């Protein structure tokens, strides 16, 4: 199963535990899952110290998330971790969908070249977390405290106070800013008495990770009604270290205790893969939920990741969207901490990431409804799609085995400046959208952007001088590469983009005066 005792996760007594009065910290993060860790790393990259509390004393249990999207890898690239994660994981971009034993559809999530990062990697969640923990320790700015369980939280006008239980007894802490990244069961959410409402799906899913040697392509295989799981769905996906994720829909009434007994799971594994040798890494049974908090900001307390929203796993939107929460929050908190922006900037974290949560909840509930239809009518439509999909192109668009995670474009964001392009022109890069990568000479556009605001002039004219807004906060570059210009709608006429620190587009123009860029920058920090 998981690795032997890893000292990276060991409980260590903190000097804060000796104090008569609670120690104070500017930023405390509850939860060292992927979301808390990425936030801590991003803040550290911007020079901020933070305390991260987690009740665990070891890597998280089981694999849970395995699919990490291109956008997540781009964020990890900004934090200097993408190359390691890609090396450690398995890269994929294609999937197949079967109805019974027939392949009815195949897809390619990254059909075009010219992106630094692949469409997806698969890597066990605990591996990703372990890489983040190592980087957090290297930064010297992240005070990671394992075996620290938050038991009480009290908000105040200027921050929050916490009670933390440890193997050596309890202690108190106060913080200017508290980030709740403490997962689905969030203690912070419960202490604040906040609702977490939405939809629960009745169907149960048996999920297991098995280690075995087979020669199969690294593709996502999804079955509707396969002979080894009649009337239900199944999923097969490769992870690192010859581990495979098997996922069986088992129905609403299945007995989970019976189903999760290794000898019973083994029968399912053999029915799916044949009479092979394997070992179990993890077995679990889930009923999925789609729900969110009504607001992600409560004064000085901010919610991120599963603590703020939960989705079903079809589409790999849970962890990936949580990491995008961190990406959105880190630069805003940085601007507020440095006094460059007012607290109002954090309201846009709430607005933008709620929009993203709604998008993810919608996509993953629709996929779950397709995979486990409610009632005979819904099932008939699902089966009709499966019956038509092989010969009718239109039915392929209805087929839904999970719409895989893509970044949200913050269309209604108060931080965006009204689009300077004509309607429908280069829509993929409209204000609010995540910047798209492209090759530059011997590097990549997203890596050239760095950590802060960036102003890019895309032009095919090599002699173009740097366009400079004259603000130290904005670094400016000129890009003349063909593919980059084409992607940014500048193949025929130049374009100027202002990109936020989270690499989303703040504004764009066909021509911009320095005052335009300065005004867009002020808008983008809610000044």
């Amino acid at each position, binding site marked *: 199963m998981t690795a032997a005792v890893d000292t990276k996760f060991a409980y260590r007594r903190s000097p804060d535990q000796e104090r008569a009065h609670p120690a104070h910290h500017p930023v405390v993060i509850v939860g060292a899952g992927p979301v808390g860790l990425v936030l801590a790393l991003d803040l550290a990259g911007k020079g901020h110290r933070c305390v991260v509390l987690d009740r665990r004393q070891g890597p998280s249990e089981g694999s849970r998330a395995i699919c990490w999207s291109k956008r997540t890898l781009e964020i990890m690239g900004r934090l200097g971790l993408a190359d390691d994660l890609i090396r450690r994981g398995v890269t994929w971009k294609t999937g197949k969908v079967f109805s019974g034993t027939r392949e009815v559809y195949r897809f390619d999530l990254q059909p075009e070249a010219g992106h630094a990062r692949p469409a997806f990697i698969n890597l066990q969640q605990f591996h990703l977390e372990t890489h983040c923990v190592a980087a957090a320790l290297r930064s010297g700015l992240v005070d990671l405290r394992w075996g620290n369980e938050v038991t009480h939280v009290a908000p105040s006008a200027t921050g929050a106070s916490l009670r933390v239980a440890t193997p050596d007894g309890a202690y108190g802490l106060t913080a200017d800013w508290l980030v709740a990244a403490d997962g689905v069961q969030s203690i912070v959410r419960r202490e604040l008495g906040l609702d977490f409402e939405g939809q629960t799906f009745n169907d149960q899913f048996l999920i297991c990770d098995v280690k075995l040697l087979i020669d199969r392509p690294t593709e996502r295989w999804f079955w509707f009604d396969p002979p080894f799981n009649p009337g239900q769905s199944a999923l097969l996906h490769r992870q690192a270290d010859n581990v495979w994720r098997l996922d069986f829909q088992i129905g609403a009434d299945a007995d989970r205790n019976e189903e999760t007994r290794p000898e019973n799971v083994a029968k399912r594994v053999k029915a799916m893969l044949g009479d092979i040798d394997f070992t179990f890494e993890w077995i679990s049974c889930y009923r999925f939920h789609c729900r969110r908090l009504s607001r992600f900001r409560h004064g000085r307390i901010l919610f991120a990741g599963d603590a703020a929203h939960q989705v079903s796993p079809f589409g790999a939107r849970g962890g990936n969207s949580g990491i995008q929460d961190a990406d959105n929050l880190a630069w805003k908190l940085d601007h507020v901490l440095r006094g460059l922006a007012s607290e109002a900037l954090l309201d846009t974290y709430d607005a933008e990431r709620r929009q993203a949560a709604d998008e993810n909840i919608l996509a993953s509930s629709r996929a779950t409804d397709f995979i486990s239809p409610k009632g005979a*009518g819904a099932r*008939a*439509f699902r*089966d009709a799609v499966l*019956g038509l999909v092989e010969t*009718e192109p239109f039915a392929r668009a209805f087929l839904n085995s999970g719409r895989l995670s893509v970044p949200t474009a913050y269309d209604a964001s108060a931080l965006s400046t009204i689009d300077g392009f004509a309607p429908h022109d280069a829509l993929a890069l409209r204000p609010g959208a995540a910047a798209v990568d492209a090759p530059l000479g011997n590097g990549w556009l997203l890596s050239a952007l760095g950590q802060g605001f960036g102003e890019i002039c895309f032009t095919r004219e090599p002699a173009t001088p740097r366009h400079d807004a004259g603000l130290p906060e904005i670094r400016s570059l000129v890009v003349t590469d063909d593919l980059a210009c084409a992607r940014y709608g500048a193949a025929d006429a130049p374009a100027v983009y202002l990109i936020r620190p989270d690499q989303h587009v703040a504004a764009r123009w066909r021509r911009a005066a320095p005052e335009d860029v300065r005004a867009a920058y002020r808008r983008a920090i809610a000044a």
Partner: protein
Amino acid sequence: MPLRRDPSFSDPDRIYNTIIDAHRGLSDAESLSLNAGLVLLLANHIGDEGIVREAIAIARASVMSMG
């Protein structure tokens, strides 16, 4: 353009029976599937979400009123 609600076929009996005949020999479950396939094909052909929504609302209201 709103949903057309006046007759549009010159021979309504024939198209009605064509639809009925398609169900001949099918189980209830198969009939349900056939209808689902037809709805999807026709909805895609119409290609106008507003029209499809209007049709759904009228058909659903008639089912509810038969209650």
